[in-house]
């Protein structure tokens, strides 16, 4: 039987109104948690479920929550990450547009578990529709007593505020997000201190992605044991895979972790256009190493499986390239993106992203030398693990792996003095 999913309403349906959400089990998890569970038991249940962050890094949610100081001093905050700016990624938007109360319920349960006063949902400024939809849902939840003073008679005073960003990828990085929310440039902070100790306004802060929080009501309502029956041993539950690029039916599909990438591309997304063959797939947003077709056809979409083949799950955003595509052009767009989005604080990142972009442009134009390609490994090594945040690493992987996995195509550009796919490939 096909997996039905639990994060999104059935196709064509919308549960943005509280009545529709409640008619489908909505707020039962919150009722259960606030009326019958101790905060520590909620944290334990989430930990036991194996729920991992859906924002890119895959860190255990329950584990992260347990880092907040046990000696509770108020106020404490949630920063919910709705910046969704990793190219290829549009999964959180599905939740925000069609099931916003599920996020509010997740935030409420997390607030109970961690003794939180307020949650700020940091939403990318371009998401006008989702912003209005979530705000309307927050107003409904407040009117229904799920937000405000003494929620469900639990003694918890808790509210949710939706905050608009203004279009900078770096504000999705958790400490860049906090700087931005406080009204500054979104330049990431040095750690320690970590957000669990000193986050928003230097107070203990839980930071989680929209989708991560949206799993929480289900974990509580149906239990950690149920959650663990979905997915794989170390990647539990489902996730929303957003497929884009050269497939017949791009779309967002909620599927268990461990679903074969081949099935996602060829069944759910309708496969390739007639007569085309698969060339490359980015499995988790452009920060993650690209896969060649052969590997892509064999790998399953969970954390361990992707790591074994030299990539990472990231945001589960699947970008598909067929044989018409030029890999150098893909690398140009990706390196341009990181160059544009580097906040400039760290030399390795600022210089490295600029250098990579320039090199890719020269390869495409056929003016690079083969020896230039050899320097890439050295440059990317300088960029990895040495900076304030992981944007630099992502920039190194994003375009560096296009070169490593498709080197003959890069060399062909240099040999011919130009792009061999100029007639067929997409333009940058």
């Amino acid at each position, binding site marked *: 039987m096909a997996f039905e999913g639990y994060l999104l309403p059935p196709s064509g349906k919308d549960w943005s109104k509280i009545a529709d959400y409640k008619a489908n089990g909505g707020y039962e998890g919150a009722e259960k948690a606030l009326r019958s569970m101790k905060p520590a038991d909620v944290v334990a249940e989430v930990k036991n479920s194996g729920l991992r962050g859906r924002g890119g890094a895959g860190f255990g949610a329950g584990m992260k929550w347990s880092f907040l100081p046990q000696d509770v001093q108020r106020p404490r905050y949630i920063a919910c990450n709705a910046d969704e700016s990793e190219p290829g990624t549009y999964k959180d938007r599905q939740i925000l547009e069609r099931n916003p109360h599920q996020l509010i319920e997740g935030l409420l349960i997390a607030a109970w578990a961690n003794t939180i006063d307020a949650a700020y949902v940091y939403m990318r*400024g371009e998401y006008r529709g989702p912003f209005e939809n979530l705000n309307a849902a927050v107003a409904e939840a407040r009117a229904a007593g799920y937000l405000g003073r003494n929620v469900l008679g639990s003694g918890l005073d808790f509210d949710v505020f939706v905050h608009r960003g*203004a279009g900078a990828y770096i504000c999705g990085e958790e400490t860049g997000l906090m700087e931005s929310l406080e*009204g*500054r440039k979104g330049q990431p902070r040095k750690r320690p201190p970590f957000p669990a100790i000193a986050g928003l306004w230097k107070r203990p802060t839980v930071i989680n992605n929209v989708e991560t929080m949206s799993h929480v009501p289900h974990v509580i309502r149906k239990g950690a044991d149920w959650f663990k029956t979905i997915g794989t041993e170390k990647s539990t539950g489902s996730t929303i895979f*957003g497929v*884009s*690029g050269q497939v017949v039916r*791009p779309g967002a599909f909620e599927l268990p972790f461990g679903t074969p990438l081949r099935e996602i591309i060829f069944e759910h997304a309708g496969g390739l256009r007639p007569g085309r063959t698969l060339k490359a797939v980015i499995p988790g947003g452009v920060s993650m190493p690209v896969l060649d077709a052969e590997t892509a056809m064999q790998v399953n979409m969970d954390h361990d499986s992707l790591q074994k083949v030299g990539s990472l799950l990231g945001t589960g955003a699947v970008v598909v390239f067929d044989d018409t595509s030029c890999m150098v052009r893909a690398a140009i767009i990706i390196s341009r993106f990181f160059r544009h989005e580097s906040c400039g604080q760290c030399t390795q990142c600022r210089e490295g992203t600029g250098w990579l972009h320039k090199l890719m442009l020269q390869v495409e134009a056929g003016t690079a030398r083969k020896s230039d390609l050899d320097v890439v490994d050295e440059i990317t090594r300088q960029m990895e693990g040495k900076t304030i945040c992981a944007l630099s690493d992502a920039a190194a992987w994003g375009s560096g792996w296009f070169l490593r996995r498709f080197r003959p195509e890069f060399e062909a550009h240099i040999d011919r003095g130009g792009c061999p796919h100029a007639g067929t490939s*997409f333009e940058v």
Partner: protein
Amino acid sequence: MPLSEELKARITAEFPKYPERRAVLLTALHFIQEECGGWVSPDVVPELAELLGILPIDVEEVVSFYPMYHPDRVGRFHVQVCTNIACCIRGARGVVRRLEEQLDVLSGEVTEDGLFSIGEVECLGSCGTAPVLMVNNERFVENVSADDVPGLVERLRARAAGGGANGSNGAGGGR
């Protein structure tokens, strides 16, 4: 140009949500762009800074850091095309080119009548319905092709002629 009382009231109404006034800065700048012609004129900076209890430079550096704020004039309809990976794969460059032809300006420029400007932006989070564009800060126009450009421009011109407010969704398409 002083901030209108109405705009100041909208901004101060946000204060209670946060422990510090400064946190309202990004929201305030969105309000200003919506109500004052789509850009942040240097004239409003000192007054906004004072309202939030920060320095003018604190406002200026935020305006220059975030791509959604415009320290210079943009067109009444600022048409922004995503040129990141999923959109380029599906023809975003052709959309930009057609806009340039249709409006007779280059990407990054404003038309002489001040009605239009073209911008290129990073991934808008709509990759499954690529290519995508956004007019001002309105709801996205999705699955757009170069051939849709003349119709889009016509609709926006009609909106301008009819006095349609900057802010409502008259771009057509979109959800």
